[in-house]
């Protein structure tokens, strides 16, 4: 969600900065003001601090020392690229799986009768009422050695599954499971921009289902699909709990590196440098996607 915040703040400042006094500012400025203050204090200021720290000497606890690039050098030299690569890989794979899993569901929800659509939506939303960590711990209890699944099968049939945690696929599973709603809802928004008539017209014109999907449905739903993909990619890039709880240290993600740099390592500048790189990576993805995205189309303003 950093992408939205980043976009919102400068936009509001740009349109709201009055030359002759605040009283003449448009109503939109006043409505945006509380959020603007919150974002300025709670998002931009800490971000600035992190950037400053990333250029401080190793292990310093002040952001006002003499700037250096040694943290970035350390990151390259001390093989931090491995955790980067894992995070990137996990983010890409889980986003790809989410695209495939969420699309049919989003299609079903947009095309279902209203009452059924509400039911399906509630079913997807319901898990969000339980904290992510608790849900992940639930899966740990379920999948662990002598957990619900293994123990249950052992007791009933004498053959268990052993531990299903402590591997990479289960981390991907966790990411897909946790971030499904973030993919699904933007996708539903995107797909609801595809009029059923237009879909039928393409078929009527002789298009196969695949061609209709490729030429008509996907391009029209693209804004929603891209926002969903972007959200999932950015969030899972910084994901932490899935690898920690389900993966149990089988791999280390960059978010875990950042955490240990700030805690056990007591090396804030290194943690900050890692954070800056993650933010740049996420920012690049957002930038690339946003360049291809028509938000007006997303909001249905330029419908035919």
């Amino acid at each position, binding site marked *: 969600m950093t992408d939205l915040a980043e976009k919102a703040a400068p936009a509001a400042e740009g349109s709201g900065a009055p030359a002759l006094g605040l009283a003449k500012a448009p109503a939109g400025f006043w409505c945006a003001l509380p959020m603007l203050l919150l974002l300025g204090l709670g998002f931009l200021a800490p971000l600035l601090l992190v950037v400053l720290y990333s250029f401080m000497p190793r292990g310093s606890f002040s952001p006002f020392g003499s700037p250096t690039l040694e943290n970035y050098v350390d990151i390259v030299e001390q093989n931090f690229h491995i955790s980067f690569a894992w995070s990137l890989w996990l983010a890409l794979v889980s986003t790809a799986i989410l695209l495939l899993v969420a699309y049919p569901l989003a299609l079903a929800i947009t095309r279902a009768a209203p009452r059924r659509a509400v039911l399906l939506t509630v079913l997807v939303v319901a898990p969000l009422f339980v904290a992510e960590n608790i849900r992940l711990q639930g899966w740990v209890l379920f999948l662990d050695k002598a957990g619900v699944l293994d123990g249950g099968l052992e007791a009933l049939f004498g053959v268990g599954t052993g531990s299903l945690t402590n591997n990479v696929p289960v981390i991907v599973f966790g990411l897909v499971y946790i971030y499904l709603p973030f993919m699904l809802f933007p996708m539903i928004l995107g797909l609801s921009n595809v009029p059923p008539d237009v879909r039928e*017209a393409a*078929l*009527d*014109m*002789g*298009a196969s289902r695949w061609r209709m999907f490729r030429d008509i449905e996907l*391009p*029209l739903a693209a804004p929603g699909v891209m926002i969903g993909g972007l959200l999932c990619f950015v969030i899972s890039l910084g994901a932490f709990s899935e690898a920690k709880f389900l993966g149990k240290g089988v791999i280390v993600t960059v978010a875990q590196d950042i955490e240990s740099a700030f805690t056990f390592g007591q090396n804030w500048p290194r943690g900050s440098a890692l954070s800056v790189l993650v933010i740049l990576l996420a920012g690049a993805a957002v930038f690339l996607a946003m360049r291809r995205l028509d938000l007006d189309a997303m909001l249905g303003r330029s419908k035919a």
Partner: protein
Amino acid sequence: MTSAPILELRSVEKQFGDLLAVERVSLAIAEGEFFTIVGPSGSGKTTLIRLLVGMDVPTRGEILLRGERINETPANKRPTCMVFQSLALFPHMTVGQNVEYPLKCRGVDPAERRRRAEACLGLAHLATSYYDRPVTKCSGGERQRVALARALAFDPEILFFDEPLSAIDYKLRKTLEKELKDIQRETGKTFVYITHSLEEAMIMSDRIGVMRDGRLVQVGSPREIYKAPESRFVSEFMGEVNTLPVVRRDDGRLFCEPLGVAFDPPPGAAPSRGVLVVRPEDMRFAEDDAEDAIRGEIFNEYLLGSRVQYQVRAGGVTLLVERLRDLERPGGETRLRFDPADSLLFAE
């Protein structure tokens, strides 16, 4: 019908749960015919056309295209296509891309596609300069033409229309109706058109099928439908009509209780009690005081372009009379007559 029908329906039915949306519809449409299915909203005409283009499958009965059963053939495998009520243009494409889409689906090469697209735009009276324009930048009338050009580019055996003109303003609609008829003449294609407006149907069609509650209640030429409606529903669907409740007296004449006047019956079948339907244009103001003249009072008049419609109150009934403008009458007391041959009698 001289040749074998291009499209034939045999007792076609479509059921949605408890609702029988289309009930035992049988029909044969000839090659090159402009056939219009007309009915009020909810009469099942849109459901019927969806069966005909292959977007739904009939519950019972058979649909035959040139003698071949196509009940289950999906829309993208049928040599027919439809102009949608919403037009269903592809909003992310230009006019040219829209029109070329059916050709692209068939793998026609780009140069040939462009040539045919431009020809179809021409047929639909759209300049080739529209080719690169996004459809979102086109006006309502232009979009109509793009949708038509796209359907023509498909080169269908039958071209279906689902009320495409219903959202267009009156003047443009009249123009497009005539153009559509011209295009049908020019291309010789079979057009099957759906509308709720009998007026629209009359202007364009070779034959009309009137639908009510999922059934086809009458099929005939516009003249037949107009001159000899087979039911009160069809006669009333034609537009505003006068309906007089009548009872047959012993002398054979039809007595209208509220008016206190007896009329000669129209020729043909003779129920003992029913409704006499007289069109406003068949009512005349009478000078003489004949036995079957209706005494009333003009209390309102509306100018309908070349004609004037009078509302005449007689015995608690409001009657409509339409005359040419130069036959205008002042208000006040008046007498009305009509020729029994112009009236229609339907059993209640």
